[in-house]
Every structure is written in C-alpha cells, then in structure tokens.
C-alpha cells in the first residue's frame, strides 16, 4: 500500500467504516439477549437466531428463494448461451436490436417490471403463482448471464472450432466437445451472478409475490415495514453471513471484480 499517502489511507479507512457500519450493526444487534433492539452490552446470546425456527414463514421463504434462484438462473443460462453464440458469431439483421432487448431489463426500473408483471400475470391467470415468479426472474437475471457468456464467446478463437470441424466433428460435437468447454468459465460465473441477483431481488418480486409464495427478501421487507425487532436482525445477519461465505468462495473462483466488470476469466 506504499503508493497511497497518509491522507489517502485516512480517507480509505473512513470509506471502509461507512461501508461496513450498517452491516456490522445488523450482525451485532442480532446477538442481543434482550427482547428489544439494543447492542449486546450485557453479553451475547443466540436466542434470536434460535427464534427464527419458530417462524416457519421465514424458513419457507428461504427455501422458495433458493428454488426460485436456482430454477430461474438455470433457465436463463439455457436461453443465454445460444443467444450469446448467435450474437458473438453472426452478423445478422437486427443483431444490435436483439442485444439491446436482451439487456433491457438492466435499464427498466424493477418497480416498472413489477407493475408490468403484476398486470400481465393477473390478466393471464398467473398472479401469485410460483411459475409467475420464475418467469419474471428469468427476465431480470438473463442480462447478467448473457453479459458473461457473451464476453466468454467473444473471447474464443473461432479457428479452434474450425480445427474440430476439419478433424471430422459435426456442429453438435463441435459445440459439446470444444465450444462449450471453452465458454464454461463464462457460463458458470454467469449462472452464479444470475442466481445471486434472483436471490436478492426484492423490488419487482414484492409486486408479484403472494403471502403463500414469496421470497426471503420480500418477507423480510414486509416484516420490517411493520416493525423492526431483533428477529429481523438475526434473519438479516444469517443472510449476511451466508453471503459472506459465498462471496469469499466466488472471489477465490472467479475474482469478484471480474464477475462484476462483466468479463469472465478465460
């Protein structure tokens, strides 16, 4: 860190405190032994973590969130891989327009998407259904999957595929034995980013979730709107701790900056 002066380091320290403060506070409050919100000055307690088990709606929402994220990101990646290959490989009419369309959910405010899906699903009889949640989440996470797969697809030397063809491989074999392994890092990191975005999505989901079919962030959001107590802290702290573990694993596997800057490690 020698290249940063003391002033820069002081700024950096304040910045890091600013970033970490609310996260640390959530975790700290969750360990309170009191029945009201307070920083645990009189010893640590796990009572509020144990209390989560008495609220099956949180557990059910957590399970549904995992399923929703897994299904929607898998379907999204299934759609994104061929689309990315088409965009990266071919110059066709409407290529730019299609790319813009596939990336458009990044630009459309999630409130607007939520409203649009609420209206749409109520018209076609899908409101409050798990299927509706999956369909809407596919749309929201597809751009993330597409960007990473696209970066990986642009990165491969097409002559490697030509080599496979010249050695006798047909299109399908070439894809399975050569193309897919080459874009795999992009596919995996795209899936992971899609999963995380689906799991964390709250703004759009709050419009289309129903009390029986909802996600953990939405359940938490609705609970916080009514009252803030140590229980939401312990649920949030659990979420934060899980995310931290995932984060460290991801950083080891892909590098967080690569994941977010939209280019896969090749």
């Amino acid at each position, binding site marked *: *860190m020698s290249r*940063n002066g003391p002033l820069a380091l002081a*700024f*950096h320290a304040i910045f*890091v405190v*600013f*970033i*970490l403060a*609310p*996260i640390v*506070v*959530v975790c700290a409050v969750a360990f309170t032994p009191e029945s009201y*919100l307070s920083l645990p000055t009189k010893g640590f307690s796990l009572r509020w973590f144990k209390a989560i088990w008495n609220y099956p709606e949180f557990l059910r929402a957590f399970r549904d969130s995992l399923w929703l994220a897994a299904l929607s990101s898998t379907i999204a990646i299934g*759609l994104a891989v*061929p*689309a990315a290959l*088409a965009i990266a*490989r*071919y110059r*066709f009419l409407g290529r730019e327009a*299609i790319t813009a*369309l*596939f990336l458009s*959910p990044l*630009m*459309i*405010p999630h*409130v*607007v998407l939520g*409203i*649009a*899906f609420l*209206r*749409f699903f109520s018209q076609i009889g899908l409101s409050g259904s798990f299927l509706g949640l999956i369909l*809407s989440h*596919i*749309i929201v996470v597809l751009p993330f999957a597409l960007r990473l797969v696209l970066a990986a697809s642009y990165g491969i030397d097409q002559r490697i595929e030509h080599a496979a*063809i010249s050695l006798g491989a047909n299109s399908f074999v070439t*894809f399975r034995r050569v193309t897919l392994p080459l874009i795999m890092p992009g596919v995996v990191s795209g899936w992971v980013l899609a999963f995380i975005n689906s*799991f*964390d999505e*709250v*703004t759009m989901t*709050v419009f289309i979730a129903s009390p029986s079919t909802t996600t*953990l*962030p939405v359940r*938490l*959001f609705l609970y*916080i709107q009514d009252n*803030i107590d140590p229980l*939401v*802290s312990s649920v949030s702290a659990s979420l*934060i701790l899980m*995310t*931290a573990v995932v*984060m460290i694993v991801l*950083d080891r596997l892909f590098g*967080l*900056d690569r994941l977010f*800057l939209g280019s896969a490690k090749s």
Partner: protein
Amino acid sequence: MTANPKLAPLLLSGPALLVFIGLVIAPLVMTALLSFYDWGQYKGIVAEFTVKNWHEVLVDDYYYEIFGRTLRIALFVTLIAVLIGVPEAYILNRMTPRWRGVFLLVVIGPLLISVVARTLGWALLFGSTGLIGQALLTLGLTREPVDLMFTETGVIIALTHVLVPFMVLAVLAALQRLNSDVENAAMSLGAPAFTVWRRVVLPQIIPGVLSGSVIVFALAASAFATPAIIGGRRLKVAATLAYDEFLNTLNWPLGAAIAMILLVALIAIIVGSNRLIERRYAQVFE
C-alpha cells in the same frame, strides 16, 4: 459451426427472443395501455380510454413534489457517490494486488448482500435510539436526539451506501485500462502528483465516472426498498408512490401512468447520456 449463417442466429436466439417478446414487450405494452384506462373507487378498472391518469400525475402538485423529491435524492446520491467513489477507486487501484483483493471484497462485496439487510442496518443506526443519534448526543454535538429516520438526508445516506460500489466499479474499470507509463511520463516531465492526477489521470477516467454516474442515478431514481424502509409512508418517492397506488389504493391505471413516466424519463436519461458520453469521448476511447 457449419450451420446456415442466415438461419443459425435466428434458431440460436429464437427461444430467448420469444421469451422476451412474451414477457417483456407484452407486459410493458399492457401496462402502457392500462395507464389510459379509467378507474373508480367502486367501479374498479374500466377499459375505457381516458387521459385523466396522465393529466392528474402531470398536473397535481402532490405528484410534482414526489417526482421532485425523487430527482433531488437521485442527484444528491450521484454527486456524493462521485465525490467519495472516485477517490476510493483511485486508492484501491494504487494498492498492492493483495490488499486490493481484500478491500475489493469489502467495498464491492456488499452488492451481493440483500439490499433489505443493508438498509436495515441504516434503520438501526438512524432511529432516535440508534447509534448515530446517541453518539452525537454523547459527544455533545447536539442537545436533542437526532433522528434521521423518515428524512431525505437519511434516504440519501442509505442509498449512497447501497449504490456507491457501482461507482467504484465503473471508475476502477476505467483506471485499469489506463497505461501506468502515461502517469510516469507526466511525472518525468516534471508534473507534481496532483497535477498528474488532474491533467493526466482524471481526463482519462471521466468516461468511467460518467457511466458510473448514469448507473447510480438510474438506480437511485428508481430505488424502492431503501426509500420504503428509511423514508416510510411519510416520505414517498416515485417507486414507493407507484407501489402504494397498486397495492394499497388499488388505483392501477394511475400507478401504471406513474410507472410509465418513470420508465420513459429514465430511459431517456440513460440513452441520452450514453450517447453524449460516446460522442464526446469517441475519439479518445475508440
């Protein structure tokens, strides 16, 4: 791939295209239509063409105030994000790879944490019994307990916290494209450190700062969870207003009109500023 170059892209992108036509274009068109439908407290939604929702939203002071507040919050959040995010990105970029890795995890990692959990942290800090209020009281900086809950300042602080990682990322990306020899060249020509930064580094990362600003502004203007938790019912912004129309008042056509205004305004701002950035910096950055 030996497939027909005319048919292949269509077959490959076809499934995703169908899904997007069915699930993005159709719902948005239906919402746009909905905004022209009539609504009454007792009759509900009536499929009759009317511009009264648009008229109401565009004329009524109540809505003006909310849209104005949304814009003000988004601008402040963007400004603060630039002021603290740009130096932080520069500092991160100058660290040794080892430390940079650690602090990237700290700075960018929160993006992976649910925005509800992050905002809850601020709610805990802000309340009259929260840490910030008590700290200010203890330090004797204030006599009354400061309560930032349900204030614009509170929303701006929390939203900046949620969105500043995007700014750091965008600037960091621009910094990493920089050729460090250029900085050294400026230094060898006799420029002091700050001049190097102002005359050589800054002009090159401006596109990164601008694209980061567009992202932060767009997300701040359409933010929902954070203003809903920190601002509550008392301090509505466009997104929470639309939410209330849909799920509390049940005036869907009016909510749809608000959503459409938000959508059109944001897309105009995003596309417009991206064009501007591209045109202004096209020569410098390919």
